[in-house]
């Protein structure tokens, strides 16, 4: 499968295109916010507190006069860093567990499979709270727990795929032509499980965004000095009866980002899976459609 082939198919499907545009836009906003935002997101301006949306403050201000648009722009940095960090950790733990569960000796393989099946029942949010109870909450705890939690999920989906590829002719041919197991893994196995893996990763990042928002809302994620959409929701909630309008924006930002990562995952799945025809073709089993991990 050529690279231009599947990126082209990704762009051609509307979920893929929508997901790609949204995710790239959020990344772009996060980068721009490093250099510029309409106001300093942390600047308190009591005279202008609870300003409505208008020419000055496009989305209005919060209870201490901070510009909500600027806060959202700064918050996108936290979102992207949590998604990327959790994604990186999920990649490492997921691939390591999957490789161990597919390639090791039989006893280890089966033990890994059972442990993965058990760990998957442990919700990411509870894992993060458990770690927070010991070391206190922080964004790092969120990144680590979502990364590990989702790594387990990736391992569960990638492991059978790895086993399947392991018994295919080209891997056998590779082994016959003298490749070491490590070379074979790198050259033949990983490229072939990559599609399944990347799709899971995209869905996992959606879970990471939701988890960051939820944990920051509960007070176990971002601290007051770190801009976060979830934390902003918690702050605005206190005045929800008086200023119900302002609470709309951070929620929309989170929803749009999560939707972006989810649709990107759907688009990637359709673009990389040759057995999935556009319409009326065989449909994937329900269990592989949505990630089982809940934020």
């Amino acid at each position, binding site marked *: 499968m050529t690279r231009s082939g599947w990126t082209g198919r990704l762009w051609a499907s509307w979920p893929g295109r929508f997901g790609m545009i949204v995710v790239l836009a959020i990344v772009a906003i996060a980068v721009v916010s490093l250099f510029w935002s309409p106001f300093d997101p942390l600047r308190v301006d009591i005279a202008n507190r609870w300003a409505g949306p208008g020419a000055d403050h496009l989305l209005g201000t919060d209870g201490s006069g901070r510009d909500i648009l600027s806060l959202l722009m700064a918050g996108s940095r936290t979102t992207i860093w949590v998604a990327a960090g959790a994604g990186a950790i999920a990649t490492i733990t997921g691939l390591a567990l999957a490789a161990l569960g597919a390639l090791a000796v039989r006893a280890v393989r089966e033990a890994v499979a*059972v*442990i993965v*099946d*058990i*760990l998957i*029942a*442990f*919700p*990411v*949010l*509870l894992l993060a*709270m*458990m*770690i*927070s*109870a*010991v*070391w206190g*909450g922080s964004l790092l705890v969120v990144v680590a727990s979502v990364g590990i939690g989702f790594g387990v999920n990736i391992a569960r989906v990638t492991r059978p795929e790895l086993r399947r590829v392991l018994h295919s002719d080209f891997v056998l041919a590779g082994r016959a032509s003298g490749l070491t197991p490590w070379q074979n893994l790198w050259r033949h196995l990983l490229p072939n499980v990559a599609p399944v893996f990347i799709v899971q990763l995209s869905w996992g990042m*959606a879970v990471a965004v*939701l988890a960051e*928002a*939820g944990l920051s*809302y*509960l*007070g*176990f994620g971002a601290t007051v000095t770190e801009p976060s959409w*979830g934390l902003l*929701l918690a702050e605005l*909630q206190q005045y*929800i*009866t008086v200023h*119900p309008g302002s*609470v*709309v924006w*951070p*929620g929309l930002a*989170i*929803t*749009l980002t*999560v*939707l972006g990562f*989810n*649709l990107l995952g759907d688009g990637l799945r359709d673009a990389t899976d040759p057995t999935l025809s556009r*319409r009326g073709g*065989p*449909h*994937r*089993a*329900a*269990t592989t*459609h*949505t990630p*089982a991990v*809940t*934020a």
Partner: protein
Amino acid sequence: MIRYALTRLALLLLGLFVASALIFTTLRVLPGDVAQLIAGVNSSAAQVAAIRERLGLDQPLPVQYGTWILGVLRGDLGTSQLTGTPVIEEIVEKAQVTIPLGLLSLTVALLIAVPFGVIAAVRRHRVDGSIVSFGAQALAAVPVVWAGMMLVVVFAVWLGWLPAQGFPRAGWDDPAAALRALILPALTIGVVEGAVLLRFVRSATLQAMGQDFVRTGAAKGLTKTQSLMRHGLPSVGLSVITVIGLQVAGIIVGAVVIEQLFSLPGIGRMLVADTGNRDLVKVQSELLVLTGFVLIVGFLVDLLHRVIDPRQREGDA
């Protein structure tokens, strides 16, 4: 069947062991000196030693783990370090909020997911089917906290129909008020979880539509929809049962966040408070109860699935 049940039971026990070992390791072993952590930075050596003795921290770790698990089996979940009340008493009290909340949420989720999931599958080439599918996709992306806030804005702030927060002091002695307090929270969790569940129902229905027995029904004169309703829905129901097992975790997580948002005195809010207070003994037992619950429901769901679906029993001796 009995052989399957026993194997599955062994897996459940293994699962409970792995989960409890993970919780114990994280909360007791990793922090290093738990007594110091509980006592705080400004504590004297005597205070730390007293805590160590009271919690049995001077014992070897396997003994501590054994003491904890044996206690749990007898219904003794330890006592809170802050209030001194037995943890089991508090959990039983808070469960009176969380269990009805969970059941109501699940009901809402099913009422949304099953009919709309079937519609989304049957009418997938029509506008309404696509709208339902996309709506579910978008709703599943909504953070549950924000969904709750939006419902509060509409139903509590604007319309004034339902309370924005709180639970009656009298609890279920005032059933009408208690139920009213749970409507918005249950609606919040139910709508978001229902959207996730809807996508499973849609996939399951699509799969059922491709099955031979549904196609045969259509071939012998039923319409496609009639055949699906008569022959296909039982198999859709089976996959829904499986997914409910997965949804339990989602509902628990939802309850943790939503009880906080609506100031409901449930297990989730207690866990948030105890985590913030670093009441490690309590957090340890609460997490075991919650994950144990998820694992046990998973076990029951698998057994139920086996009992209902004759195809699964074919390999049994």
